[in-house]
């Protein structure tokens, strides 16, 4: 799944969703019921938040009997790593290599 950084920011911009995501990252897989218990928000509201997190790739769900269990997928945060910084370092190094090559070429 390819999720744009904008969608990740939007999903994590909400404090309730952020706390759900942090809790799943910290405590591992949880059923919706357990997440509702500590949140002070109704179960439908929690389910709605979980769905937004799922669309952003931040959580995964697993059906077990009549309950749905959710777990965090922190790897989804990787798009937030700045490609611009990566390529700035990359090209700087490659241009050095290009100059070395030009020095070695005969004409």
């Amino acid at each position: 799944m390819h999720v744009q950084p904008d969608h990740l920011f939007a999903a994590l911009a909400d404090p309730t969703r952020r706390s759900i995501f942090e809790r799943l990252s910290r405590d591992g897989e949880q059923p919706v019921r357990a997440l509702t218990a500590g949140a002070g928000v109704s179960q439908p509201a929690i389910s709605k938040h979980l769905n937004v997190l799922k669309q952003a790739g931040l959580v995964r769900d697993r059906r077990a009997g009549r309950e749905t269990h959710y777990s965090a997928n922190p790897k989804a945060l990787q798009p937030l790593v700045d490609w611009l910084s990566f390529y700035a370092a990359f090209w700087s190094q490659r241009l050095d290599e290009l100059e070395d090559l030009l020095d070695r070429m005969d004409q």
Partner: protein
Amino acid sequence: MSDSGPRRSLVFERQMKHPPEKVWRALTESYLIAEWLMENDFVPKVGHRFTMRAVPLPGWSGIVNCEVLAVEPPHRLSYRWGDGTESDSGLVTVVTWTLTARDGGTLVRMEQSGFRAPDELAFKRMGKGWPRVLELLDNVAARTN
């Protein structure tokens, strides 16, 4: 895919002591490109699709799917860098090389354009949550190393 939001570019300019024709060869001959950039199957022909191959990173396959956009020897070369399928972030950029004869050598300009800037408003809304996300990111990085 959303195409909204500002785009950012990377620009490098370097004066090199070799003539444009020689720099052009290093930019357009496949076996020479492999020496300084990446393994590739580049051909200097507009519309030609090729791949650049490097060592994979977490979140990136190490492959870059490219397409030649402009070939004007020995001054301008442009290719699409990435088609959005190689990394989790769906990066699609354009790399453009401009060579200008100067002082007996060449002014080499490289621009990579099309980086998606994370939405500034979203940044602001993140507020105090942002350091926590960075902390989580550090954990991910530590685990994937």
